[in-house]
């Protein structure tokens, strides 16, 4: 590879584009064609999204472990950790709040009388 620079090469752009195209088509196909059993659709499209995020981070945003890339990669990984805490924490807390604080099996009067 004669020409590899901070902005990659034509080959790396084309690879990133083709991989993204295939992963996108698989995700839409899994939902639209019903090719995947219903219960497995959500894990499947989540996995495909994570794969495509990694492909674009490496091929388009040039994250990696090489010289001059480590700084950006470390900042990204810390941000990804914060995103994980914010998103999974919100879902967990709100799931518990819904579960414990919205009685659907009884009337409000019955819920009041229990204490």
């Amino acid at each position, binding site marked *: 590879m004669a020409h590899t*620079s*901070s*902005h*990659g*090469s*034509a080959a790396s*752009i*084309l690879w*990133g*584009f083709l991989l*993204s*195209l295939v992963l*996108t088509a698989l*995700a*839409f196909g*899994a*939902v*639209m064609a019903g090719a995947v059993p*219903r219960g497995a*659709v*959500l894990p499947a*499209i*989540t996995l*495909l*999204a994570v794969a*495509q*995020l990694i492909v*674009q*981070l490496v091929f*388009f*945003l040039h994250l990696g472990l090489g010289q*001059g890339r480590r*700084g*950006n990669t470390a*900042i*990204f990984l*810390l*941000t990804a950790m*914060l*995103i994980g805490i*914010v*998103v999974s924490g*919100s*879902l967990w807390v*709100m799931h518990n709040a819904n579960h414990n604080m919205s009685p659907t099996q009884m009337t409000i009067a019955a819920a009041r009388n229990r204490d």
Partner: protein
Amino acid sequence: MSAAHHDDGSKTTLGFWIYLMSDCLIFASLFATFAVLAGNVVGGPEGRELFDLSYVGWETLLLLVSSATFGFAMLAMEREDRRALRQWLVLTWLLGAGFIAMEVHEFAALIAEGAGPQRSAFLSAYFTLVGTHGLHVTAGLLWLAVMIHQLSVFGIDAMVRRRLACLSLFWHFLDLVWICVFTFVYLRGAV
């Protein structure tokens, strides 16, 4: 590679990357809000009745191709090929404008059928999340138009290089956010 060691604007792009990561956190909180509220439709329309997946597929394709054309623009910049750089940037702008036109049309159709942001918590969260991404792309289009103009005035100088390097990060970053939008808003909503 020795030329890359004098002032190549790498501190600016590092600072811009840190800004992008903070923008990432805005999107993370909007995604968390959407995920929490997605089921609260108060008897109104659900995602699977509202979303046209093949339409979203075409929007996705426009944004994905525009990411590749921006990549080729950056290669033209490195070759100092001003003509090709301009052509790739104009093509990227047209693809981005096509994406925004499709999104505006989609929003207008939803509001026209009574599924506007006031209808339910689900739709409020949907319009906030997808609209925020759309506003970012619109800002990117404005920035891109300014850069096409600056390129014709200044040519490929250090300032134009630095600014285009930042815009390239911004543009690819918006494509990353869109991957999460089509997966967790549209595809998830249709399951």
